[in-house]
């Protein structure tokens, strides 16, 4: 479902990025996850350096989770949001 108006959502960073951003969790508005990330980058520009390869692609090993569901990397930018959504940024950790 595509939102027609901007949703109010929360964005939470992993602990290692809190050292960079100086915050852990903020509330932002946007129609898509891409909008929300842009809002976060506007507030804390250095986050773009740490999270993005280019304007729409997350770095490898950076994981975006929306309401407990992992969003495929190539869909992160365009995924629609609704009020109350929670976006978590994680490091993808693999191994055994």
């Amino acid at each position, binding site marked *: 479902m595509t939102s027609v108006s901007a949703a109010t959502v929360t964005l939470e960073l992993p602990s290692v990025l809190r050292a960079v951003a100086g915050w852990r969790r903020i509330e932002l508005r946007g129609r898509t996850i891409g909008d929300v990330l842009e809002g976060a980058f506007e507030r804390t520009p250095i986050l773009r350096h*740490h999270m993005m390869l280019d304007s729409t692609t997350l*770095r490898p090993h950076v994981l975006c989770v929306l309401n407990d569901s992992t969003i495929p990397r190539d869909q992160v930018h365009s995924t629609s949001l609704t009020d109350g959504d929670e976006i978590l940024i994680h490091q993808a950790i693999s191994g055994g």
Partner: protein
Amino acid sequence: MADKVVLCVGTKRGLFLLESNRRRQKWTIKGPFLKGWTVHHALIDTRGTPRLHVAAENFAFAANAFSGGLSGERLKPSETPPQPPDMNAKAKKFAKQYGLDMARRIWLIEPGPAKEKKVLYAGTAPAGLFRSENGGKSWEPVESINKHRTRKDWSPGAGGQSHHSIQLDPHDPSRMYVAISAAGTFRTDDGGKRWKPINTAVAKYVGAPDETTVGTCVHKLRVHPTEPGRLFQQNHVGVYRSDDHGDTWNRIDKGLPYDFGFGLALNPHDPETCYVIPLEPEGYAFRATSGALNVYRAGANGKSWKKLSKGLPQKHAHVSVLRQAMDSDRLKPCGIYFGTGGGQVFVSADEGASWSAAAEYLPPVYSVTAAVV
């Protein structure tokens, strides 16, 4: 009067600060700071109010330079970090072929001239030199070396194509030295406008083009703080000394068990001396000691070496010591310090005559620097 010695210990998982008084017998450990970040280098800039500068990366997030007060808390990242330049196509192909480290990272941060307290330099991988004029808030590339005419012949080493050494000439503010693996050593005499490769008579690595003025694998370069023109380098192949600002080099490793090593430290009160930790070369082991961990001190002109083993493990110590993980302080007698891949930090308060462990169970140590504050 400065009354505290602080070691900045960068590890695979965070930064630790080891503190002692001038006697340097008992050490307290603080940290980890920047928990979860790999700290490749950290130092205290003592030119004004002491400031901590840290080069760190995380496997998922990009490299950055952090700065802050000596508490280690509230380290602030750079707003415009160094952006390491690409390797050339030949170097990329070589790195891929041999599975060499291609990660973008900051290898070290060094303070600028004494009178320019806000100036800092940083070296990166792939090899780049960066300058900050605002205490690390933002960084600009030094293109005169980053786009040097010899860059086409710069090869990556096993640890990447790293710009790992930055040394200012203490007697001439317009002269500066840098060293890159695996390219070699360069000098500027005009404040960074032009850079001259200074690798004459230094052994080249296997496969380096015959005609190139680079092609040497310097592992660590240091300039002596009081003796004009005196340089030392620990190379992939040998230990070298220069008495003429690097125009010529003399190989001085005769008598060492191995000519291979990474760490290098100087005694600020004795320009004849350098300290190295010989390691078994690649292909034989894991670039580690052969079970006995020893520091060696050069005698006059490197004609003799003294093994310094008192207090160091002599059996089953299969650890490595990386190039940023060895340093000295400026006290008299000077302290010598190094960290290991096994998480130990060894300290000597008597110029290497005896050693003790100031920390034993840290994550693998990537860097050790000493400051008197």
